[in-house]
């Protein structure tokens, strides 16, 4: 395999050709923040937090979409890079509720972590902030678009599943937001509640309704479990607090599988001693259903009777 050698922060690094500057730097032990970068879905380059300086380049390129090249001289922590990152974080915070004290994501939120790392306390440009209603229409997923940093990960992961692409960017400029078609609520959309989107959201914009108010992130432990409904083997996290299972969350789809609600509900029933009542959409409304119906076992149960 051909390789390329570049210099990152004065250190010579050799990586396989085609490696991004981001991966080369991470591999060499340097830190670069990312919001929109999704290794399962690369090539987006939207949030710009991962910009670096590359000698000879006109601008600061996003390292996640820049291929490492021979002789490249990269700085990942120069004053210009830090200034850009801080400014980008300030811009995000200026359009964000900054209510970390009650946010479900607190403790594992990238915005919070990077603000801490780059010492961005507040950013008051004294201007408009987005002010969208919360979307609690789906019984499993809470959407707070006021916290969204528009990284687009949810959009891209949802559209990975053929015929899905439930959510997309709507509007332009400062009014840009992620929304289902026609800016409807999630419940009105074709969303199948698989929670792929929740699993990739770097901030508190998409969270699990079942977890709301139950625990701070640092009080929980997570055990990775492989779903056994089908042979694809999607990954789920069984989340516990003080030894009690409180929820099951989606982690990563198995090869060629969309991640499905049925799989997660099955895990929930298996591991959670007090699983929340399952809900399915019927005639456009979410209604409570029996576990056998939720898991698609009604016909089998009939036969067993």
């Amino acid at each position: 395999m051909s390789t390329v050698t570049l210099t990152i922060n004065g250190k010579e690094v050799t990586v396989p050709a085609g490696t991004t500057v981001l991966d080369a730097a991470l591999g060499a032990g340097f830190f670069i923040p990312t919001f929109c970068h999704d290794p399962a879905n690369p090539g987006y380059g939207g949030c710009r937090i991962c910009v670096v300086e590359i000698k000879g380049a006109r601008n600061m390129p996003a390292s996640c979409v820049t291929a490492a090249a021979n002789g490249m001289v990269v700085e990942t922590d120069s004053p210009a890079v830090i200034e850009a990152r801080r400014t980008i974080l300030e811009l995000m915070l200026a359009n964000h509720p900054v209510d970390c004290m009650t946010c479900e994501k607190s403790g594992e939120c990238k915005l919070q972590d990077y603000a801490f790392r780059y010492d961005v306390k507040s950013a008051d440009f004294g201007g408009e902030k987005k002010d969208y209603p919360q979307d609690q229409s789906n019984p499993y997923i809470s959407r707070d678009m006021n916290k969204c940093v528009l990284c687009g990960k949810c959009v891209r992961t949802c559209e990975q599943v053929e015929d899905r692409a439930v959510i997309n960017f709507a509007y332009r400029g400062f009014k840009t937001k992620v929304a289902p078609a026609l800016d409807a609520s999630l419940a009105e959309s074709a969303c199948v509640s698989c929670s792929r989107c929740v699993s990739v959201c770097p901030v508190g914009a998409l969270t699990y309704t079942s977890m709301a108010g139950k625990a701070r992130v640092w009080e929980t432990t997570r055990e990775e479990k492989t779903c056994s409904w089908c042979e694809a083997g999607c990954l789920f996290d069984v989340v516990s607090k003080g030894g009690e299972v409180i929820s099951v969350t989606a982690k990563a789809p198995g090869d060629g599988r969309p991640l499905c609600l049925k799989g997660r509900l099955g895990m929930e029933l298996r591991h959670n001693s007090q699983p929340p009542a399952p809900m399915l959409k019927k005639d456009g409304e979410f209604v409570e259903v029996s576990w056998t119906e939720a898991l698609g076992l009604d016909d089998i149960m009939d036969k067993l009777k």
Partner: protein
Amino acid sequence: MTNLQKSRSTIEEQYKAKQNRPRIVVGLGTCGIAAGGNKVMAAIKNEVASRGLDVDVDFTSCIGMCFAEPAVEIGLPGQASVVYGGIYPDKVGQLIDGHVVGKKPVTELAAIQITGGAEPFEGIPVMEQSGYYAKQVRSVTSRLGRTNPESIEDYIATGGYAGIEKAVAMERLDIINEVKKSGIRGRGGGGFPTGNKWQFVHDAVGDKKYIVCNADEGDPGAFMDRSVLEGDPHAVLEGMMIAGFAIGADEGVIYCRAEYPLAIKRLNLAIEEAEKMGLMGENILGTGFSFKIRIKAGAGAFVCGEETALLNSIEGQRGMPRVRPPFPAHKGLWQKPTCLNNVETFANIPFIIRNGGEWYAAMGTEKSKGSKVFCLTGKINNTGLCEVPMGITMGEILNDIAGGIKEGKKFKAVQSGGPSGGCLPTEKLDLPIDYDSLISAGAMMGSGGLVFMDETTCMVDVAKFFLNFTQLESCGKCTPCREGTKRLLETLIRITEGAGTAEDIPNLERLAKVIKSSALCALGQTAPNPVLTTLRYFRNEYEAHINDKKCPAGVCAALLSFSILKDKCIGCGVCLKACPVDAISGEKKAVHVIDPAKCVKCGACVPKCKFEAIVKA
């Protein structure tokens, strides 16, 4: 090769015969139509029919003198033809009486004359020497206002499709070398050398390649591409075909904004006619080369002019830029190698192939060759379209072509490059216009819009205008552009409303710098230019707004105060009646005063005072 040669000579004969007939030609570009050209056309046809005159009535596109629309040209056999300006239906009778029946030009309505080798008439400026045209060249615009854009015969008779005829007999790499030799750089704004781009697409490996023409033209106030599309649609098609042959593509797409219905109509017609004559479609001119072109109407978002957003839009996705590399030359439309150029770039190609790269390179400067079309707008006497050799100075355009600033006011700044460009002050009027000089001055060539501003313009207000535009047009994909332009705009609004603070200027500069260096696409990377150039050249105006709470140009309403000069006021009381909020008081024959707490700064009183006693500052 089949027989275009033969039909060309017939077509040329017919064209000559047409020029030798008495004729009245109406300018029916979008500007001419907007000025009422269709009504003029109807009036002329009516007169000609009712008087039974033996005269042809035809139409053409915009000759460039938008300030003179509706324009009508009259020519008699063997004589110079005369272009008349401001011809509304009520003047039609007079024109026909004078020039067609009386066979004498109506000098007082004439704008210019085109001699075509004949003796010029007295008292009418000859086009090439007239103020508006003396410093211009007519190359890519040579057919504008001269031929019927809906007639393929007019196109062919004026050298049209000779470029593709020549090209298909050449080696593909020789064509690309000719384009390289011409030195032409992309006319869509970026200024990338066209020959090099073609080489990349030629060299790219792909089972299928595309030609895409960028006719999105979203800059506010720009209409160069519209004029070329409406005035010479075949030239754009021919340029695309030559590119297709050179790089090995058999399919082209023109992405044209839907707000240009006339351009789309004429393009469709041109495609149809070219197909009918075997100049487009399968096996062109019997050479085995096939090429077809379709039109995609765009929804008119500014960002869709950015090449990768444009490709997404053609593919039916949201118009958001892609990261580059990969460049369209390698992975463009449907991930296939794609040659994407601007309308004006393509329209230049047939001329370059016909006349040779060296002919083109003889015009212009060392690094910016050839000519460029500009739209002149703003506070100038002659608004319109002009084509100038690269290297001409901004001052020549202002004073010679644009006829200087209107109403004898003083020039203050010119915005070059639309919302991505910058405002240049008087000191920069001797700047030669080329890609690199404009960038070093903080502005941009852009697609060719020039907005001239006079002394009554507030530069902070101008920056605010452009930022409002880019902020709304940001696609929302990347953080610095989406969030940053909004904050720039909000800061500018605060400054113009008198709420500016000492930190605003350094904050603007820092934000602008980060947006420029870290935004994903050129929309964001150039969006701060209007702020940065006004800060660079007109910093004192920002300081006056922030520190003294004054708008020196008297534009920003919140910073204006109206007062009555004691020594000029005679106490007539006229202003008192004009004020809608009763802010003015005073006894008859005594000096009047304005209560600043009540005054809403509408300015209604100012023009009412015959003694110029009311001042705003």
